[in-house]
């Protein structure tokens, strides 16, 4: 080994070291995107989560009308924070259906009375089974679903006021 060649191991070591340091320093994203975006909603039937609202089945999402599917829970604080935005989206004419994760009917009733009800139907997912089938990993999450039941978009975390117009447009364009 002569000339420049003898520096090759050192250069390789520095390159590897920088790559590893970069990997460690880069803030890891904690959002797990669902791989179900682009696929059809898996088949499910959920009982009503609270008195006065129907439950939710996958067949309700293939009626030709696009929906916003909101996955939430009464015990989830960010879900209460996104309630006004859901109300605004519903007022813009978007049908919103919900899946309540590990919830109790009374608790959900109180949640809706306090934060307003933007939902046409809420299914009770007491063991997170439908949440898993959708590739969702937390609450709140929302899915834009077209009239044939295909998932077009996933929103992870609460819907903020600046997201409202975009989501309304996305659902309305989804016919």
């Amino acid at each position, binding site marked *: *080994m002569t000339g420049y060649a003898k520096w090759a*191991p050192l250069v390789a070591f520095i390159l590897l070291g920088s790559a590893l340091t970069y990997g460690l320093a880069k803030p890891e994203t904690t959002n797990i995107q669902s791989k179900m975006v682009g696929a059809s909603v898996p088949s499910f039937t959920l009982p009503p989560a609270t008195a006065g609202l129907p439950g939710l089945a996958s067949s309700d999402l293939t009626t030709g009308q696009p929906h916003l599917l909101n996955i939430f829970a009464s015990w989830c604080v960010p879900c209460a924070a996104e309630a006004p935005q859901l109300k605004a989206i519903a007022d813009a004419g978007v049908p919103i259906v919900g899946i309540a994760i590990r919830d*109790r009917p009374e608790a959900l009733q109180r949640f809706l009375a306090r934060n307003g009800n933007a939902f046409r139907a809420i299914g009770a997912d007491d*063991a*997170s089974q439908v949440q*898993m089938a959708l590739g969702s990993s937390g609450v709140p999450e929302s899915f834009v679903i077209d009239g044939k039941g295909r998932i077009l978009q996933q929103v992870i975390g609460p819907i903020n006021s600046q997201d409202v117009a975009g989501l309304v447009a996305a659902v309305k364009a989804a016919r």
Partner: protein
Amino acid sequence: MRRLLLALALVAAPVLADSDLPPAPLADTQLPDPKQEARAQALMETIRCLVCQGQSIADSNAELAGDMRAMVRQRIAAGERPEAIRAWLIQRYGSWVTYDPPLDRVTWLLWAAPVMFLVVGLLVARSSFRRRRA
């Protein structure tokens, strides 16, 4: 003022981040058939918890991890193969969800890198030994 704040901090209820439903029936209960339970346990140890990333669902106390354990045990008890359940989860959450990632376009370097380093090391060693002898 500071004392008042301290008193308030002490009485403040922690923010509720968990539901008050009990864990799903099979979340913390073993299957009656030890062979099935062993298969379920082996699978659960290689499925990553979605909430407390960095733990397997076998190790995690998160509610979603409990629901995932219940799902795994139900399906094993129904006769489903562990690899089919893993594939079902990968289809939903990506290879991220398994601690035993499949060999594909993104992960081949994980397996190839040790061999590549070994080859480079052997080449370097060979050339430096040869020079010393000469």
